[in-house]
């Protein structure tokens, strides 16, 4: 007789279809896309078998773009329209951009984020990044022969709220469903930890093209827990190129260079840097537009000495993160090296000396972040059964706070707090009868607001007249799993509730993104509606599938009437999915979401009960 199978509560009995999910490493210098196929994470190469996509976008006068190697090859020839290292400008104002004088671009100072004037119009860094993401999306869809259901995009751990939001916006602009923003060192730790079954405290030293991160993680079976993180979002391999470039300019006694010569010499400086990883001497040779020839030799010793300050600059954050974690060098079991710039021998040596152990280099430093992101995307897509997956606990890198009297920053959520996190703080009025309060939300470790990053300003109005100090305004900060902040404020004492919620946006509102989508060449042929319809259908399908799985597992938590209500909302949505009215689909999806609110809360409660019950049985 056949045995009847009963699944564990909360787990769906039938394996759902495999969802196509990819991880994207959107790097300063190079970008990659990876996926998990037959249980193994692999980087997806382009048609020519090349795994890397240089993060370079060239805008042409006819509105077309070239991305990757083709654009890279034209850098010196068309420097103003060929944007490299755009990651450095994400979520940044013009005054935040380092080395403006030695970049060939025509910057436009815009509120929130700097923009670049090209032959194809003014472009925001978000748009430029989305061009890179679009190419990677196409590469993945071609290679996997299907629509990508969701992506994980990696960001430097030390990215602030503005830089994270800009990255997520770029994903949306590229038509991607961004499941999560994942910190790069954390992604690397996943790939390294799973590959080597590592357990204990590990440091990840990630020196990329433009950013530096140091994270300390506690690894154990089924758990990746970030203990502390620090870094410098304006320090990377590019700065080593820059040092070498400046050295060359000085050594060859060159006059101020035009954009083409500057870019050419920068490219040659980078080539020389890479050669010095394997050779003790290298050459910088460049023929300038004046006809003059630059011909310089540089040896390892000189290169080390002119970049010594850069290497030392990474050790400050390393000490800080150990202190924040309450650890010493001896507690750390291993140091995983990530990012192409860690190939430089002087970096390897400095890290080895600091941690008093040889750094771990057994994974390709260029690929490890994309591989980890692919593994996490696979888990988030629900392709791994419970028990084989893992829990990832990450932190915010920089404290979040609010400006108080005298321009001081009051910290609300301190750095290295595990996310998601929320914290509230009460404020009061300064004058009798004060009816409004303005808030300034900042991020950073400095005491003075002027030294922190300004994230948002907003006003709470309609406070009823009271004497000074009587109002109670509660400001709540909520950080989600992507590390993104939303802030709300509410006055409580009088029973009158004035409330406001802000999400810092940095000059890119939802409407802007829609407009950009409309403007982009890809969608110029009046298919905006078609695109909206496709998106609503995909979202609707996803919601239906999720609700079905939830009902299958936990219908017992509902009364028959409640089940009927949810099923009615599902049927309504399902019927509209076949139609062409994207607004009606959205409305039906919203209604289904509303109908399942209570059910969702009860499922969470049941999950917690299971967790506690399981532990009690386990501890008997």
């Amino acid at each position, binding site marked *: 007789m056949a045995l009847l199978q009963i699944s564990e509560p909360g787990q769906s009995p039938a394996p759902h279809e495999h969802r196509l999910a990819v991880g994207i490493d959107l790097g300063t210098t190079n970008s990659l896309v990876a996926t998990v196929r037959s249980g193994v994470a692999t980087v997806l190469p382009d048609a020519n078998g090349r795994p890397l996509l240089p993060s370079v976008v060239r805008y042409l006068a006819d509105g077309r773009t070239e991305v990757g190697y083709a654009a890279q090859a034209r850098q010196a020839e068309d420097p103003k329209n060929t944007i490299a290292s755009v990651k450095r400008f994400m979520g940044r104002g013009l005054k935040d951009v380092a080395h403006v004088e030695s970049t060939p671009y025509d910057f436009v100072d815009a509120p929130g984020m700097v923009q670049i004037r090209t032959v194809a119009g003014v472009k925001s860094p978000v748009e430029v990044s989305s061009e890179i993401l679009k190419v990677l999306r196409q590469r993945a869809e071609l290679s996997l022969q299907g629509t990508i259901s969701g992506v994980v995009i990696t960001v430097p751990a030390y990215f602030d709220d503005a830089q994270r939001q800009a990255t997520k916006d770029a994903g949306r602009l590229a038509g991607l469903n961004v499941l999560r923003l994942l910190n790069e060192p954390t992604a690397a730790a996943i790939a390294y930890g799973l590959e080597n079954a590592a357990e204990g405290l590990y440091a990840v030293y990630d020196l990329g093209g433009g950013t530096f991160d140091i994270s300390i993680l506690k690894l154990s079976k089924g758990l990746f827990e970030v203990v502390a993180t620090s870094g410098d979002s304006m320090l990377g391999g590019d700065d080593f190129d820059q040092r070498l470039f400046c050295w060359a300019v000085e050594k060859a006694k060159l006059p101020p260079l035009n954009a083409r010569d500057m870019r050419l010499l920068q490219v040659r400086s980078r080539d020389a840097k890479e050669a010095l990883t394997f050779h003790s001497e290298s050459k910088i040779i460049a023929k300038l537009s004046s006809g003059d020839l630059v011909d310089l030799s540089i040896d390892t010793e000189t290169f080390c000495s002119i970049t010594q300050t850069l290497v030392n600059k990474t050790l400050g954050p390393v000490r800080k993160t150990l202190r924040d974690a309450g650890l010493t060098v001896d507690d750390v079991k291993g140091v995983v090296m990530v990012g192409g710039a860690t190939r430089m021998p002087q970096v390897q040596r400095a890290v080895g000396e600091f941690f008093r152990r040889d750094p771990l280099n057994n994974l390709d430093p260029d690929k490890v972040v994309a591989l980890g992101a692919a593994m996490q995307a696979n888990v*988030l897509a629900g392709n791994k059964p419970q028990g084989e997956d893992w829990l990832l606990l990450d932190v915010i890198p920089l404290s979040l706070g609010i400006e108080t009297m005298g321009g001081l920053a009051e910290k609300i959520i301190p750095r290295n707090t*595990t996310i998601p996190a929320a914290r509230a703080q009460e404020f009061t009025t300064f004058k009798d009868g004060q009816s409004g309060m303005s808030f300034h939300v900042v991020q950073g470790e400095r005491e003075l607001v002027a030294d922190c990053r300004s994230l948002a300003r907003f006003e709470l109005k309609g406070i009823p007249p009271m004497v000074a100090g009587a109002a109670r305004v509660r400001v709540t900060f909520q950080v989600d799993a992507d590390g993104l902040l939303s802030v709300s404020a509410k006055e409580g004492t009088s029973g009158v509730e004035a409330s406001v919620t802000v999400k810092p946006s940095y000059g890119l509102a939802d409407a802007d993104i829609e407009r950009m989508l409309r403007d982009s060449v890809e969608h110029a042929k009046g298919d905006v509606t078609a695109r909206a319809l496709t998106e609503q259908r995909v979202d609707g399908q996803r919601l239906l599938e999720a609700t079905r799985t939830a009902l299958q597992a936990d219908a017992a938590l509902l009364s028959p009437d409640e089940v009927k209500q949810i099923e009615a909302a599902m049927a309504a949505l399902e019927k509209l999915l076949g139609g062409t009215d994207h607004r009606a689909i959205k409305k039906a999806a919203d209604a289904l979401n509303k109908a399942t609110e209570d059910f969702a809360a009860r499922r969470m409660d049941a999950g*917690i009960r299971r967790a506690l019950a399981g532990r009690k049985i386990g501890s008997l």
Partner: protein
Amino acid sequence: MNAGAAKALTSSSHFALFGLPEAFSLDLEMLEKAYRGIQSQVHPDRFAHAGDAERRASLQWTTRVNEAYRSLKNPVQRARHLLELHGVDVAFETNTAMPPEFLVQQMELRETLEEAKDSAALDGLRASLVGEKRSMEKAIAEAIDARKDYKGAADLVRKLQFLHRLDEEIDEAYEALD
């Protein structure tokens, strides 16, 4: 369903949330296990593909669980929470009265901190603080767990808070050195 779990969901006690006894002496390993168990059920990573309602519920729960875990791990916050559960306000902000000998000792420690010009001096100060904190925590455990003297414990918690502030100032001094 189990009665303890039902209590966990309705109570505002962080201890009940994790199914732990309400006591200052805490088995950190048990706490971590319970935390991981609950997180594995409610964490947003489990609901990345779910509908809005479930994603919102997951965010709220995870936020609460993280906050409860953070509070219980920190001895000052843990004691403060316990006293609140027993109707005693620690009043960090308003009650700053301290016995004179404690204040004198604190001033001396702060003078030592101001004079510490290198990391070796800071290391020494930190090491001496570890012992101070440990004996204060022991006294708090006796007051709360054994004697149930919550009012008396509040004075000790304020002292422990002083020591923790000094700890933070040592951190800042290290940062200033970098």
